[in-house]
């Protein structure tokens, strides 16, 4: 495949598929574009989408955050406890602070103890969930029904000009994230570090500061997402959103962000999140059991990655290395600084 076409596919491929899916959606689900259904699809996509925006930075920097599922459960639980203790303001503050704290814990483990991000966040996934379980030993934290009129509950339920507020928040998050990644020095450093940590070091990019920034950002995104999540489902305990981290990573990868780091596309992530939500909605409306829904999501992911693998295999720069070494997908980093 030719490189400029490949570039186009990188940024817009998944968006094109999304549009295609939207075109056939009304055929499968006649009332797909009804206000109710459309609103519910967008509302459902918000918490996944907001965390996927943060995760795009982590993956672009060459790292994973596997702990976001645990973070979401913990943020939700703590936020509900905050609401019970001090109302809306405390609930919002608690969610954001908990997310931020989780991110700082991750970054601290990675930089101070020199644990690889994959391992560190796999560990904290269990820790954060564990803490959420302990906090809900007496039963899940819930929003009482009599709170239906409170401003907090409105976060999940309100519509702004026909758009669900969670989706509006998600749009704002993506706008901010795009500016951060594409138009700030910090965003550029994230991409530089993901592309080559060693070269980035000699450009004056501090690995420690970068890790703290990226993981704090992911934590913050989980904090925001938790607000849209609990005000939607009204209850949380340690088991909330089991397997969430893999859904998030799947969406980011589906969007075209390279697992090797150095590249990140928020437009792609955004489209992939909507794609997953639309697909889910179609399956649900067809009465497909949830077990099969997982299989479909897995299949979509594999197909997307195969296309991506084929593309990078034949795009010019990498092909030399792979061809010379006779290796398939995984390649070594040839040459090394001393």
């Amino acid at each position: 495949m030719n490189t400029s076409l490949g570039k186009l596919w990188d940024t817009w491929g998944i968006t094109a598929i999304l549009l295609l899916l939207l075109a056939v959606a009304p055929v499968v689900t006649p009332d797909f574009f009804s206000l109710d259904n459309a609103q519910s699809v967008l509302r459902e996509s918000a918490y996944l989408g907001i965390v996927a925006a943060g995760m795009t930075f982590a993956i672009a920097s060459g790292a994973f955050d596997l702990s976001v599922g645990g973070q979401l459960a913990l943020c939700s639980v703590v936020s509900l406890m905050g609401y019970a203790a001090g109302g809306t303001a405390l609930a919002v503050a608690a969610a954001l602070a908990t997310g931020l704290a989780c991110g700082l814990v991750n970054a601290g483990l990675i930089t101070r103890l020199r644990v690889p991000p994959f391992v560190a966040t796999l560990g904290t996934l269990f820790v954060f969930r564990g803490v959420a379980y302990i906090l809900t030993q007496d039963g899940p934290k819930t929003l009482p029904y009599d709170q239906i009129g409170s401003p907090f509950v409105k976060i999940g339920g309100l519509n702004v000009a026909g758009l669900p507020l969670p989706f509006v928040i998600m749009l704002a998050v993506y706008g901010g994230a795009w500016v951060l990644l594409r138009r700030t020095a910090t965003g550029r450093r994230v991409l530089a570090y993901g592309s080559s940590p060693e070269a980035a070091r000699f450009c004056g990019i501090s690995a420690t500061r970068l890790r703290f920034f990226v993981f704090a950002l992911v934590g913050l995104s989980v904090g925001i997402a938790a607000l849209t999540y609990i005000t939607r489902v009204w209850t949380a305990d340690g088991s909330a959103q089991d397997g969430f981290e893999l859904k998030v990573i799947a969406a980011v990868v589906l969007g075209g962000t390279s697992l090797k780091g150095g590249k990140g596309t928020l437009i792609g992530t955004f489209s992939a999140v909507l794609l997953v939500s639309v697909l889910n909605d179609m399956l649900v409306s067809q009465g497909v059991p949830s077990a099969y829904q997982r299989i479909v999501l897995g299949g979509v992911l594999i197909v997307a990655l195969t296309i991506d693998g084929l593309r990078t295999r034949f795009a010019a720069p990498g092909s030399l290395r792979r061809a010379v070494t006779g290796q398939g997908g995984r390649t070594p980093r040839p040459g090394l600084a001393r």
Partner: protein
Amino acid sequence: MADTGTPALLRVDGLTVEFPGVRALDGVHFDVAAGEVHALVGENGAGKSTLLKVLGGLHRPSAGAVTLDGAAYRPRRPADAVHAGIAVIYQEFNLYPDLTVAENVFSGREPVHPLTRGIRYAEINRRAAELFAVLGVAIDPTAPVSSLTVSEQQLVEIAKALSVDGRIIVMDEPTAALSADEVTRLLDVVRRLRAEGRSVIYVSHRLDEVFAVADRVTVLRDGRHVRTVPLAETSTDELVRWMVGRDVEALFPRGDAVAGDVVLELDRVSAGRQLREVSLTVRAGEIVGIGGVAGAGQPELSQVVFGALPVTGGRMLLGGAPYRPDGPADAMRAGIGFLHEDRKAAGILPDLSVRDNLTVSVLDKVRGALGRLLSPAAESGVFATYRDRLAVRATGPDQLIGQLSGGNQQKVLFGRALAPGGRLLILNEPTRGVDIGAKVEIHQLINEITAEGAGVIMISSDLPELLGISDRVYVLAGGRVAGHLTGADRTEENVMTCASTGRRIFSPEPVS
């Protein structure tokens, strides 16, 4: 098919290779006889590496034909080239850092035990050692590649190609990272290959090597064939004119430097076992050269000053004040620019565009009207400045740096080091892989920044360059300063003596 009397073993006709936005080769013809050393020269981006990659089975031409021994040769993958007896040493290394030297040399072709299918380590280690003996270097076949210097990595690549036992050996800038001694031995190896009846295609920007070893030379310019002549019938000046299309100004332009205050002072600085009690000074407006054989501590010295390697003893002063950088970011804030010697592993950011690769060192200065936000216009402006000045050949600011030719990548990285414009610039092998015109331009840029009052530390394994452009030269040996040469003492003999015999030569300090 041997001995049919046809002189050309390999023939290339009307070869055209296209990339999006560039025609890297445009109807090139070229031929090599058995037992011939045929040099290929041209500016950065002329298409030399592209031609070799076609021969190696990495690129497929959009037009043209290659014949090998009278039969059509259309390699579809690297293994086809090896099978046809063509071994290629590529410009960019392709080594597995975590495997041993011997494993890398025989990678994909390891002799295995007939029953267990296990690699015969004793055999590959022995054969690798034999290859290094031929090259006259002491590299441990069992060492991991990650522990090697850049020049040692280059030698491993050379050994890899020699181990194939091909009838055509293709070498793309094999000496760019080698020291003078290693170059001499490599040229001997090339002559021996020719004596054995093998053919060698030799790419280099160092024309003295071309004259020393090649029978004929082909000049490429802008992807087109310019001339093929026997070297006996041409001269350096003529080759340069064909390559560049004009006369190149004298090499090593250096006006009279006016040394100012001391910018940097090292007082018995040590770093582990790599660097021992090194003392030196760099003054404003001065180019201070660092010489020595590979592995004598030059990169370590540069990294200590840049804060990339911790100091374990002694002290540094920057502008008269104590200087203890906590990482390269600190050093950059203190006004120090840096160019790494390992372009591929510690230089380029492969997923980023040429513009982003250049401006990564000046992200604080390419902000737009909104204050904190990067300004694409300002970034493109910085890129345009260096593209014009250094004649960087790219389709545009958005091209990925990995798609540039090796020499053009080097120019971008040089621009990156220069762009912040601080008070001290540390340059490791600044002209590695760049063509003759760009080399003069880089030297002129170095002169300009010293004229503006910056001090420069320059490390180069290219001895004529080191002596030609430096005002003073420190020679390192075994991590220690073994010599300090100024004025008329700056000779190749003196550098060699200090670097390799253990004798120490210290010119008297100039009284300022």
